[in-house]
C-alpha cells in the first residue's frame, strides 16, 4: 500500500478519496439574526431589514408628518398597498412588507391600519361576533379607522453580466399617497449594489 501512494496516480487517488469523504455529514450553525451572510448574491433578509429601516426612518423624518399633525391635531393613519416585484428575483415581498410595518408601528409616530389582505379575515371575524358574541363584547361593523395615506412601491433591478461576474443593482421605490386628494407627499428610494463573482473552477 505504501509503495502505491508513492506513485503519482496513487497520490492522486488518495487525495481524491479524501475529498469525497470530506463532505460527509450535515453541519448546522446557528447565526445571529443581525449578522450579514451573503450566500448567492440574491436579495436576502439583510437587504430587507436594511432597506425598510432606512426608508421608514427617512419617511418619518420629513415635513409631511408634522404638517399633518399640525393641521389635524392627530397622527395620520397609513395603510400598506401593493408593493410590486419588478425585479429579476422571486423576492418574498411579504417579509419586506412585514419589516416595513414593524418599523412604522414601532416608531409610534404614525397609526397603522390593517392592509387589504389582512382585513378580510378581520371583517369576517367581526361579522361572526355579530351573530355569536355576547352583546356587550360585540364590535360593531362600520367602525374601522379609514386610512389617510397609502404606501405603495416597487422593487426594481438592473443586472449587468460579464462572464462569471455579475453586478446587481436593486432600487426600492416607495410612494406615500394621500387618500384624500391623490397628492404624493413622500417619495423614498433606496439603492443597493452587489458585485457577485462566481468562480470559473471548482473542485
Amino acid at each position, binding site marked *: *500500500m505504501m*509503495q*502505491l501512494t508513492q*506513485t503519482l*496516480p*496513487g497520490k*492522486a*487517488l488518495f487525495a*481524491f478519496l479524501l*475529498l469525497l469523504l470530506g463532505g460527509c455529514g450535515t453541519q448546522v450553525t446557528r447565526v445571529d439574526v443581525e449578522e450579514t451572510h451573503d450566500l*448567492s448574491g440574491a436579495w436576502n433578509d439583510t437587504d430587507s431589514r436594511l432597506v425598510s429601516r432606512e426608508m421608514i426612518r427617512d419617511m418619518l423624518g420629513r415635513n409631511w408628518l408634522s404638517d399633518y399633525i399640525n393641521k389635524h391635531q392627530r397622527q395620520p393613519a397609513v395603510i400598506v398597498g401593493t408593493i*410590486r*416585484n*419588478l*425585479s*429579476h*428575483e*422571486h423576492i418574498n415581498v411579504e417579509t419586506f412588507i412585514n419589516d416595513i410595518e414593524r418599523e412604522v408601528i414601532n416608531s409610534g409616530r404614525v397609526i397603522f391600519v390593517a392592509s387589504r389582505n389582512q382585513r378580510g379575515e378581520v371583517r369576517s371575524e367581526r361579522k361572526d361576533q355579530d351573530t355569536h358574541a355576547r352583546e356587550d363584547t360585540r364590535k360593531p361593523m362600520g367602525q374601522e379607522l379609514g386610512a389617510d395615506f397609502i404606501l405603495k412601491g416597487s422593487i426594481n*433591478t438592473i*443586472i449587468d*453580466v*460579464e*462572464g*462569471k461576474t455579475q453586478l446587481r443593482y436593486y432600487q426600492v421605490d416607495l410612494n406615500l399617497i394621500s387618500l384624500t386628494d391623490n397628492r404624493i407627499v413622500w417619495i423614498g428610494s433606496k439603492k443597493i449594489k452587489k458585485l457577485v463573482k*462566481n*468562480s*470559473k*473552477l*471548482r*473542485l
Partner: protein
Amino acid sequence: MWHHPASFFTGWLLICGLLLQGCASYSHSFYPIEQKLSRQDPAGALLELEKQGYASGDQLLYLFNKAMLQRMQADFAGSNQTLEKAKRIIQRYAATSITEESAAFMVNDATRTYIGTPLEQVMLHVYAALNYLELGDHDAARVEILQVDVRLRQLMSDAPNSALSVDPFARYLAGMIFEDLGEYSDAMIAYRKAYQAYQLHNSKLYALAIPPALKRDLLRMARRVGLWDEYRKLRQRFAIAEEEITAAPAGEGEIVLILHNGLAPLKREHDVAVVDPGSGRLIRVSLPYYQDRSNRVKGARLIAGKASQTTETVEHIDAIDHKTLEAYMPAITARAIARAVVKYNMAREAGKQDQLAGVLVNIAGFVVERADTRSWLTLPAKIQMARLRLKAGRYNLSLELLDASGRPVRSVKLGEIDLPKGKRRYISYHYIPPYAQRY
C-alpha cells in the same frame, strides 16, 4: 494481488465508473417512464421516476423531469419549486470541475455533473414562466422572463457568433407577458428580438416558418408604441392588411393554447470497437447521436364553440437539439479519442508489469467507455401555439389533434374556461404519442 499496481488501476476504473454510474446509458433508463407517459399516466411516470432514483451527477435531469411531470398533472406550484431547485444546481455546478474533468478523461463523459444544454437552461425559465401564467401570477412570470434575459445575455457573451445563443420562443413569450402587463416598449423589444432569432435560426440552423401571429404582434406593437417607420417597413415586408392588425376590441379576451407536442429526441450511442492488430488490445470509441421519436400529430386545432384556430410552431426543440449536438461533436470526438489514447497507454503500462494485469486494465477501460446520452427527455419535440380572440364569457374548449395533411387524429376535451374582458388566459396541453419508443 491487492498490492499489484495494475489491479489498483482496474479497481479504480471500475469503482469510478460504477460509483459515478456513467456505465449505463442514461437514455435507456428513461424507457419505463416513457411507457407510463405513453399510456397518458403522468402520475405513474412520476412514481417510476422517484423509484428509479438518480446518480449524483444526474440530479438536474431528475429535477427537470419531475418538474415537467408535475406540470402535466397541473401541479404548477410544485413544478416551480422543483425548477427553483434545478436553478440552484445549475448555479452551483456551472464552474468547471477539475476532478470531474480528470475523471472524464479516464472513465467517460457521463461522469461529469450535468448542467444542461443552453436550450435546456432557457426552457427551464420558459416552463417556469408558463407555470406562473397558468397560476395567474403575471408578476412572477415577468421575473422568470427577466431571468431568461440574463441567461441569454450570458450565452451571447460566451458565444457571440453562434445562432444557438438566441432563443426565439423565450423572447416571444417575454413579449406576450410584457404586453399583458402593459409594458409596450419592452414588449416591442422582445417581439423584435424574437423575430430576429427566428430569422437567424432559419438562415443558419434549420428551416422554419416565422409564426404569422408574431408578425401581427410586431405590427400591432409598433403601431401602439408609435414606431411608424418600422411599422410601414414591416407591413410591406409581411404583406399583411391593415384590418388584421387591430388590438382586441373592448369586451374581448384572448385564449392562448400552448401545445407541447411529442417528446424531445433521445441520444443514442454509436460504438466503434476495434482490436489493435499490433498489440491485440481493444480500443473503443463511443459517440452520441440524436434519434427523433416518431409522432403522427403535427399540429392541432383549438375549438371554442363556433370559433377555431390551428396551431403554429413557435419552437423547434428537436431541430435545436440536433444542431446543439452538432456544435459539440468536435469537442466530444476529440475527448473520446484522447480518452482512448489514455486508456491504451494505461493498459500498456500495466501490461509491462504483468500481462494479465494489462488485459484487465484494457477490459476495464473498454467496459466503462460509454457516450454521454443525457438530455431532458420530457421536453416536447415542438412547442406550438394557437390564439383565439373571443368575447368575454365561459367557453367549453376542445382540441383536435391533426396529422401532416391536416386530418384529425384525435379529439381532446380541455374543459371549461372563464375568459375575462381584455385579458389573456393561457392553457397548456401536453401530447405524448400512445406508443413508447423501443430501444
